[in-house]
């Protein structure tokens, strides 16, 4: 059942060193504020899963929180490379990281399987790709009815799933609207879950088939206005494209990144 907490309390009580985490949001509703709080609380040795480990994971990796990255597309969308992730992979700075690489279809299916309580996802994927040579987590299963070989990947079941959403009601039920990505799946698949929201409302005013997460599927709801910035929140604020563009220069250089960490994360309190 949901508890309402500050973001600082949420991370302090739910996220431990060594945990596997998925901070999801497919371009939209990326839980940046939660990521920054994890950095502030200096969590270590995290396994981070995310389809598109963009700027948010570049920051967590650069801050030395991460030992392993599971992903399917790593880049700063429309801008270029993730320099902190590359520095970690190529030069073990600030610490070495292991990577497990999938395709989007594999990860989307793996989250779906995690939400569905299955040990694995089955799909028609990786045909002719050399990714199975680079990833031991890809297997093949024969359909007992047709004989077709289908690809299989383990379900994703993080210790903690973290997402940002537009709003929660006073009972802690959450509405997500717009590009909903894999957020519902992440919350349902995770052992524990944190949802940061723009605001608390009296009524979600949701249509019957809207994407709603009941309070009892969420461990913590924390109000963090602007918690997805520089990503966006449909109906609240647009994507800060300049931030993404400027990130390229900030993240290219270790010193400028570390300065950014000091001034933009550590110097700030709990959002």
């Amino acid at each position, binding site marked *: 059942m949901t508890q309402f907490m500050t973001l600082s309390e949420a991370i302090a009580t739910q996220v431990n060193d060594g945990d596997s985490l998925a901070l999801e949001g497919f371009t939209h509703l990326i839980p940046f504020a939660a990521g920054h709080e994890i950095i502030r609380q200096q969590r270590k040795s995290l396994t981070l899963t995310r389809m598109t480990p963009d700027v948010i994971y570049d920051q967590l990796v650069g801050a030395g929180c991460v030992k392993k990255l599971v992903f399917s597309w790593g880049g700063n969308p429309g*801008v270029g490379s993730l320099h902190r992730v590359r520095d970690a992979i190529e030069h073990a700075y600030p610490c070495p990281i292991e990577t497990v690489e999938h395709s989007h279809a594999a990860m989307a299916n793996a989250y779906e399987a995690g939400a569905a309580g299955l040990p694995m996802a089955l799909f028609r994927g990786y045909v*002719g790709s050399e990714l199975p040579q680079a990833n031991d987590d890809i297997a093949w299963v024969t359909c007992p009815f047709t004989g077709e070989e289908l690809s299989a990947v383990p379900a994703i079941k993080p210790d903690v799933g973290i997402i940002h959403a537009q709003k929660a009601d006073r009972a802690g039920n959450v509405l997500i609207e717009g590009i909903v990505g894999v957020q519902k799946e992440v919350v349902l698949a995770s052992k524990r879950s944190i949802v940061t929201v723009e605001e608390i409302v009296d009524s979600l005013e949701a249509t019957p088939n809207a994407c709603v997460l009941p309070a009892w599927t969420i461990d913590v709801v924390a109000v963090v206005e602007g918690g997805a910035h520089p990503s966006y929140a449909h109906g609240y604020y647009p994507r800060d494209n300049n931030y*993404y563009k400027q990130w390229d220069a900030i993240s290219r250089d270790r010193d400028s990144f570390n300065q950014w960490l000091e001034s933009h994360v550590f110097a700030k309190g709990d959002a």
Partner: protein
Amino acid sequence: MTVSGTTQYTPSEMMTVTAARALTSDMTCFVGIGLPSEAANVARMTHAPDVTLIYESGTVQTKPDILPLSIGDGELCESALTTVSVPEMFRYWLQGGHIDVGFLGTAQIDRFANLNTTVIAANHPESGKQGAHSYANPKVRLPGGGGAPEISTNAKEVFITVKHSKRTFVEQVDFVTTIGFGRDGKGRDNAPNIGKGPTVVITDLCILKPDANTKELVVTSLHPGVTREQVIEATGWEIKFAENLESTPAPSEKELIILRELKERTAKAHSA
């Protein structure tokens, strides 16, 4: 090249307009970000107003007024008929067989139209030592596969658009992120439930299509003013030209105006 009037145009504009022409109003197109997205939206704004554009962020039948910077910009959702979850997008819409065309870009492409967006190898490996070998010895770490590996097999056919250069058009890709026709051209021959694969590659120099038998990419049309030598020079294998080599029609005034206005609106919106 200075481009002011609408009778002059850049090779890049030529590429986008030509890529756009490959789409028609009756197609459903799964759109990759970057060049494919630019071409797909030009198509929608010119000759193919009813083309159905689908992005992997879950946005179905979207009609953005500006180009998205990311695959999941707000504009895509706001102008979509509906937006589904990402698992549903990959399961029901792509794997479910509802995509006519997957429109992809790439970092490397080889003679059998295999695509590499994973790694550029530290030392270009000898034949037979690509794949895992390259993966373990990267010179450049690229973003990875994203949606492409399954778009390429689950869409009914694949269009590719990419700038032509020796660095990009290589004899053998360092890593097959996404199958074209496999390292021997026979990768789709006995695979069940697989699309036709790449049917056209549009570059800033020419149009290439796979040979019906060997599946090797051959040049079928040269863009205006482009010579065979230019293409040979920009290709990392001994490129062949079709017997009936065509000349790509130049962009029309309308196409250029629409493309330029789109890019202007986009630049303005993204710097706001």
